[in-house]
């Protein structure tokens, strides 16, 4: 099965800086893919190129078998939900939702039917005649969704559509948005810098950095098997220990770190400088009991109570850090705590020679 959306070798430069660097990406029909990255990583530029609001310097984009080429924005069947919604303030809710249909010259009766169908879908039917300025943030977000979906686009692009909402509402809207798009079988590209949002919503995540995709994988893989230190650092928290490989045999490594010896799975030469990382919830208090486990004795610096869990912070040399997640009722006493994790949970990355 061919990809619904296919991006091949897309590049974009603004003056001296390369914003997109020979980027390729395929998205399947009905897939929800997130572009996750810090500001300036090129995710919004890619979105604007897909929408036809910006022309790439190189590369090609195909949607449902059609080469989008230089097709202008208004001839592409691509819906966009903008970051600040960009709702038309001079039109009512219904006027906004029906805008795309009117632009396409659809008959009035059909527009009315489609608008009420969509307002029903986003539960705004009673507000059809309201002015945009009379709506709350969450309602505006739903109008923006309905407006983009009204023309039944082949692809919907969402540019941080939830970032303007407060945390509680955002979580509700995430669930709603995901359910709506799944119900419609809509292919969606979701731009965000919020890793939790990306993990919660996506079928797959493309973590972007400096105009390239660092890793393209399912949320589970992105979190538990980050491909690069950038992904590791951008998505979730972790214990970080710099070290040197002192022993390497049959796919098992022993590293020398400031916190003590640590074992891992991987293939590195002896003497290689590496970065070892462990996700906080993989770590448990207690000494490493057998060969499947590895551990260190962690000098404790502080602890933070987060309601559903407790985070312990270790005191380590600059550049290293330790984070351990324990159940909230755990009583911690003393200055040091033996901790352990499975050898297979140690993530190991090469460290560039000159840092």
């Amino acid at each position: 099965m061919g990809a619904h959306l296919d991006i091949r070798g897309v590049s974009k430069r603004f003056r001296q800086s390369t914003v997109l660097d020979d980027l390729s990406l395929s998205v399947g029909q009905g897939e929800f893919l997130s572009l996750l990255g810090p500001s300036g990583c090129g995710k919004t530029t890619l979105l604007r190129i897909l929408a036809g609001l910006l022309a790439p310097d190189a590369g090609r984009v195909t949607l449902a078998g059609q080469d989008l080429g230089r097709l202008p924005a208004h001839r592409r069947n691509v819906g966009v939900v903008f970051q600040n919604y960009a709702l038309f303030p001079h039109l009512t809710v219904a006027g906004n939702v029906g805008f795309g249909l009117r632009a396409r010259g659809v008959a009035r009766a059909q527009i009315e039917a489609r608008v009420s169908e969509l307002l029903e879908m986003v539960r705004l039917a009673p507000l059809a005649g309201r002015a945009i300025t009379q709506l709350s943030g969450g309602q505006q977000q739903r109008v923006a969704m309905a407006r983009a979906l009204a023309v039944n686009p082949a692809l919907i692009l969402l540019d941080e559509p939830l970032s303007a909402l407060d945390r509680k509402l955002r979580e509700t809207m995430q669930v709603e948005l995901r359910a709506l798009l799944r119900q419609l079988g809509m292919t969606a590209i979701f731009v965000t810098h919020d890793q939790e949002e990306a993990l919660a919503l996506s079928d797959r995540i493309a973590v972007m950095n400096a105009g390239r995709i660092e890793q393209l994988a399912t949320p589970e893989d992105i979190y538990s098997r980050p491909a690069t230190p950038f992904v590791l650092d951008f998505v979730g928290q972790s214990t970080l220990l710099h070290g040197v490989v002192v022993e390497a045999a049959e796919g098992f490594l022993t590293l020398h770190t400031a916190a003590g010896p640590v074992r891992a799975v991987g293939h590195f030469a002896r003497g290689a400088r590496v970065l070892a990382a462990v996700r906080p919830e993989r770590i448990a208090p207690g000494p490493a009991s057998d060969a499947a486990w590895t551990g260190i004795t962690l000098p404790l610096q502080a602890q933070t109570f987060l309601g559903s869990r407790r985070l312990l912070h270790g005191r380590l040399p600059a550049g290293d850090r330790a984070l351990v997640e324990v159940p909230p009722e755990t009583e911690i006493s003393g200055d040091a705590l033996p901790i352990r994790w499975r050898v297979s949970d140690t993530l190991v990355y090469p460290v560039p020679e000159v840092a």
Partner: protein
Amino acid sequence: MRRPLLPLLGLALAWIMLAASVIFLLAPLVVTVGVSLSPSPVFQLPQGELSWRWYARVGRLEGLLPAVLLSLQVAAFATAASLVLGTLAAIAVVRGQFPGREAIATFLVSPLMLPGLVIGLAMLQYFRALGLREALPSLLLAHVIIVLPYVMRTLVAGLALFDFALIDAARTLGLSYPRAVLRVMVPVLAPSFITGGLFGFLASFDNYPISIFLTDVYHRTLPIQLLQYLGESPDPTIAAVSTLIIALTLLVLFIGDRMVGLSRMAGV
């Protein structure tokens, strides 16, 4: 508790000043309307009965109708031209990334701050130097300079608050760029267009100091024609004409209030 005396005095003084200002601004208008309704052939407020005789004479004033038509034409042309040029210039100033944008914006609004006499004299010399001696094109060009600052000022303010993502949104919904501008930017900025256009139109309509340098015997704008009547035969017909202009202005302001709101018109 007794309120301190000084703030009360201050408040009273402020109210007196306000009342005095309102009276000072309104009195000439009231006098003009009064004189126009007086039966007396000299400028005098009506004593007892009122008369429409001066209004009946308005229609018989020689050269009045051509002057009104010329002023309306010039003002309409200058406003239309300024709305197009001003919109384009304002977009460039607000959206552009070139150096000197602020300077250009200030320069385009600067005729508001220059004495009309200076502009009129400068225009006259400039047009002569270019070999332009026709009164009508000179007037039309000069009045674009009169109207443009009003349009620029309100549009730059309006565009600065305009979210250009709206145009992107309209494009992704199926409108080409020009149609998106027409269907989204124009209605959203309608208050700015109406405000700038109305004030500009009125400024052109009653301009004297610039027009005086550029008119000839065959092309007299209304203010110039009125002043000539005043010199030739000063009777209350002039007051009647002025009253009609006041009525027209009130009508325009009323329409503006309905469409935009007076506070918004005055605010920008």
